[in-house]
């Protein structure tokens, strides 16, 4: 048929727009456009209410002059940071064990670890609601065994900041082990042998070789939890009560019934989006999703 290389490539090339057209159009209309609406709404360029409006920073200024929103944001940042740090610390030894102990069943064990993450999110939150309540599994167990009297349940278990952090940690822990496992798994073991031959103890080899080489996995793991938990609103609304109320709940409430304030809500939403986008871009070299997907 004597088709030249150039012709071949051109025929392959021709279809790029037709391949990408639909997915990009879909995201353009149903992902980028809605976000643009929120942005316009926050600057009062666009609003659902009749009346005069035009570009103004008034909404932003008013929102951030109100200390409750920033305070709530920092509270959420602190909660997410704490949860992320604790579960990365817990997940590291798990991943280390799977990747480096030489166990033959590491993929089965990894699946065992990750499987809960792939089951229903809401139902796992529900389980904790049943366990932690004043009349829940833990408290009634304590009454039953006589450790506490029925009049005095451990009432801090549910509807508290503690409950939100416990449940978020429970939900994300299996997932966090994955990127750490991938980075440890790809570690060249001969480096450790070389360190050992040169007289390094296991601890020295860990501190000077293993830990630095697994840092990308640690960063990735950390961000994979921190980013979604920062905007979390489902878990706090189910187990958080007033003291577990997070920034995401505030956004939902501003768009909800009662006294909706879509402009302030848009400002808060866009602010959260910008924070997350900056984090993602700054740390994008650690967020190579392919690394994780191939695990």
């Amino acid at each position, binding site marked *: 048929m004597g088709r030249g290389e150039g012709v071949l490539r051109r025929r392959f090339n021709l279809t790029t727009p037709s391949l990408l057209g639909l*997915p990009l159009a879909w995201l353009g209309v149903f*992902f980028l456009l809605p976000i643009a609406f*929120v942005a316009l709404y926050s600057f009062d360029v666009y609003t659902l209410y009749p009346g005069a409006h035009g570009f103004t920073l008034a909404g932003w200024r008013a929102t951030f002059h109100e200390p409750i929103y920033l305070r709530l944001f920092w509270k959420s940042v602190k909660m997410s940071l704490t949860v992320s740090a604790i579960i990365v610390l817990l997940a590291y030894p798990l991943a280390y*064990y799977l990747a480096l102990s030489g166990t033959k069943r590491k993929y089965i064990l990894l699946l065992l670890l990750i499987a809960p993450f792939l089951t229903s999110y809401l139902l796992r939150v529900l*389980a904790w609601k049943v366990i932690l309540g004043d009349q829940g599994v833990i408290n009634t167990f304590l009454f039953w065994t006589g450790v506490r009297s029925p009049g005095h349940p451990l009432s801090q278990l549910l509807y508290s900041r503690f409950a939100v952090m416990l449940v978020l940690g429970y939900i994300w822990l299996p997932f966090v082990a994955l990127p750490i496992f991938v980075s440890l798994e790809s570690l060249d073991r001969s480096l450790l042998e070389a360190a050992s031959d040169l007289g390094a103890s296991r601890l020295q080899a860990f501190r000077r070789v293993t830990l630095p080489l697994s840092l990308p996995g640690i960063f990735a793991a950390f961000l994979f939890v921190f980013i979604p938990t920062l*905007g979390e609103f489902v878990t706090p609304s189910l187990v958080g009560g007033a003291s577990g109320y997070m920034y*995401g709940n505030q956004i939902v409430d501003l768009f909800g019934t009662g006294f909706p304030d879509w402009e302030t809500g848009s400002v808060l939403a866009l602010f959260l989006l910008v924070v997350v986008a900056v984090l993602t871009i700054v740390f994008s070299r650690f967020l190579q999703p392919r690394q994780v997907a191939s695990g």
Partner: protein
Amino acid sequence: MDVALSKNGARVLRAFFVLVVVFLYAPIVILLIFSFNKSQVPAFPLSGFTFQWYRDFFENSDLRGALETSAIVASLTSVGAVLLGILASIALTRRQFRAKPLVSALLLSPLVIPYVVFGISLLLLFHTLGIGNGIPTVFIGHTVITLPYTILVLVPRLEQLDIALEEAAFDLGAGRLRTFLLITLPLILPAILSAFLIAFTTSFDEYAVASFVIGTRVTFPIYLYSALRFPSELPQVIAVAVVVLVVSLIVIVGAEVGRRVAERRFAD
């Protein structure tokens, strides 16, 4: 001597691993136990064995309706997301174009958007366009958030494939479509199936985005969320929870084992 871990170190880590696995599965086991408990409230001491809650749930038509709605939404979503994902993945792995880093960043960006932000964005969009909430609006939201997952599954598989196979078919006169249908598609079928499964389960379980764009026909997670407010429905909800959790654990393990077996066979 093992350079990474001493014998005692391995023992300690193994014990820790077992402990964490127990922590991860304990809540599920507790639900399992209380799903058979006679009392209305899930509390100690256990008050006897019953199937009543499972029977109640099978007879609860609202609940069955919600499961059905979720099944419809998840089916539509997974078909839509996988189709979009196949198109995008082929472009990303088989075509050269200048804006590729930007395009791939855009395609994957729904992975990091906070769902609360995406939810209110969609709410605002549909409100503006005057589109009423319902199954189509949830389907739209779910295809956006599941599309990146399908791409993450499909792209590595397409990259592994020997491109010479496709070029050979093309050289022998098969059109692009026939090359795809006869060569590429069968070879990436396992990946397509796992992409489909991931999109389906994600959509089936998705509450956050759906809560903003749901109409009067509620999905299963929305139903669950509202049922949590009524203590009288709690025992049935626990029974459903057990069924859903156990079925999804079986599907996950089965799918993963199946994928490994299939890919090993193809690799030979």
